[in-house]
């Protein structure tokens, strides 16, 4: 009896001394739901601006169509002109890269960098935290003006590009910051989503800033990282024909 009492008080004391958030198992599904469009297609124009440490800037403009319920997306590059017509098509687990010069499709990896920026091709996928990750730790933190839950995630699917991810989620269940770690725990990429835009009843990021933590240079005594800024404009929820998500469509629009 005495032993049980001691154990109970020790437990209470540990909660008082080391307060922590209990892990909310449903939060990942709620995050995914906030930015997924399962009842229609989502389309938008992405302006991707990469700034190398030291200053050189390169810009790409792409148009993206996504059908979240079927896990499809099509990305067509509009700029720079040298890459115009190049595109990516994801159908199920297959990702194809179309080269308009050679007029050929090659199988490619979603974990590749997009146009040599810090954006990965997998970033065009619909948010899928609930299926790819499990929460291993949760705490609270203020991120600028946002009160956030900080979730440490570990991958449970091979399709998840990063083995470990830390996300800052604001009260509206919108991801405001992400840190992507390699399997060995090295911080590879930091992503901030300062602004969202409302599209239908859901949300889509408006600006995304990605810092490549592996690409840095010491410039004038200050460490500068490669920074990619993505601005998403002209969001649309127009239902697109099935033929949009096909190789033939990519070939046709590339002409």
């Amino acid at each position, binding site marked *: 009896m005495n032993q049980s009492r001691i154990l109970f008080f020790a437990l209470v004391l540990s909660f008082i001394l080391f307060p922590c958030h209990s892990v909310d198992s449903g939060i990942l599904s709620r995050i995914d739901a906030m930015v997924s469009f399962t009842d229609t297609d989502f389309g938008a124009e992405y302006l991707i601006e990469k700034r190398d*440490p030291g200053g050189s800037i390169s810009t790409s403009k792409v148009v993206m169509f996504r059908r979240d319920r079927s896990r499809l997306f099509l990305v067509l590059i509009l700029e720079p002109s040298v890459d115009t017509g190049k595109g990516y098509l994801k159908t199920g687990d297959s990702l194809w890269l179309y080269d308009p010069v050679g007029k050929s499709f090659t199988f490619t990896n979603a974990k590749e960098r997009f146009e040599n920026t810090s954006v990965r091709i997998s970033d065009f996928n619909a948010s899928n935290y609930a299926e790819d990750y499990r929460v291993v730790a949760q705490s609270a933190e203020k991120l600028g003006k946002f009160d956030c839950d900080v979730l440490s995630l570990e991958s449970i699917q091979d*399709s*998840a590009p990063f083995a470990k991810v830390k996300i800052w989620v604001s009260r509206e269940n919108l991801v405001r910051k992400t840190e992507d770690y390699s399997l*060995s725990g090295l911080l590879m990429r930091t992503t901030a989503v300062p602004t969202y835009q409302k599209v239908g009843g859901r949300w889509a990021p408006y600006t995304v800033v990605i810092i490549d933590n*592996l*690409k840095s240079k010491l410039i004038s005594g200050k460490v500068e990282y490669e920074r990619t800024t993505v601005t998403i404009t002209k969001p649309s929820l127009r239902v697109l024909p099935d033929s949009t998500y096909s190789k033939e469509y990519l070939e046709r629009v590339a002409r």
Partner: protein
Amino acid sequence: MLFFLAFRNIVRMRRRYFFVALAVALGFAMATIVSGAAFGALDAMKGKAARYFAGEVSVQGFHDPIRSHQRIERADELAEELARNIPSIRLAIPRNIYYGDDATLIFGGETVRQRRLVGVDFARDAEEFSGLSFVEGSLADITRDASKSSILISEAAASILRAHVGDDVTLSLLTDRGQYNSGTLVVRGIFQETSLFGYVAYLPLDTLNLLTARPVGAATDIAVYGHPGTLSINLAEMVRVELSRTHTVFPPLATKDAVDAALASGVSAQVYAVLPLEGNLSQMQEIMSAFLAITYTALFVFVCIVMIGILNTFRVIAHERTTEVGTLRAIGMQRSSVLSLFMLEALYMSLAAILVGLVLSFLGFGLLSFVDLGRIPAAGLFTVHGKMHFQLDPLTTVLDFFIMVAATVVAAAGPARKASRIDPAAALRMEA
């Protein structure tokens, strides 16, 4: 008697024979140097390729059709089993190759993609890697490193990264499960490599296993090396037959594409593919064959010129010795003996000249080995430590020998036949 006479005639007419012998000697030396250089270049290239592709014969293990899942569990045991059961094997050792094209070295904000990463047991595989030319550091530095957090990078990669020996570089790659992983490795050596086999980095086998999340003791390949003179195609078949006694093995496969085709037909359990080095070098072999063909065409023209020289010299010799031949015929020497005498002289002369030619070719090997070709970019593919490498192929040398002897004897045959037909009376009248 004829043998003695022929020898005496050569000594007596040494001035006449000298220039013919010199031409034969130079011809043989040229043929030997060119073929030695060609075979040496091929050998140097194969040495580099064997480091890059995993041995003269590569044993690859698969348990599903996905190339990136290539794996041999307990590779050490299998390597030992092969080395024990096949006497022609000089070395069988596990290698771990990262075939993905997304491995990236990062240092000081610069990145460089690596065409492949090769995990090596440096302590046991030292001999095969001793051919690497280091511009900084050495093989011993990485072999001594007990932490195994080290890497050898190419000069091209080091130049882009502005990295030196002792710098910590970050290696980023995908695990076999497809997730990003990274490691910090100390550069222990920077080596020169040609662009064909460049943008490769070598690191300890266990370290690459750790980074790709492969089990300890696993490898993608077993690199098999044969004793000198063992053809890799024959060795591959020996390995295939030996493996097939206890394991499932694909039928003989000549190229990497054939392996991919075999994989595409379906794999559900552990299966092995045995690929000779030539399977990865078919294009290079074609280039070398073309080079040899051009060289031998040039040599053929040279031999023809030498033959004309021999023919003319023997004509003069036969003419000058008309009286001598007439006397020999008058005292009873048969026509066939006169013919044999001249032919023996040609044979002796060619043998002596070839011997001199062989000595000259070795002198040529020695002199040319001092020439530094390291600054010529494409030459690195065919050189060892930036210098020309020569290898005498016994079969080709014997062939060169017979070609030169035959050329001399054939060139001498016409004048010799003519000399044997000299009428003794007419010859003696001419003297009178």
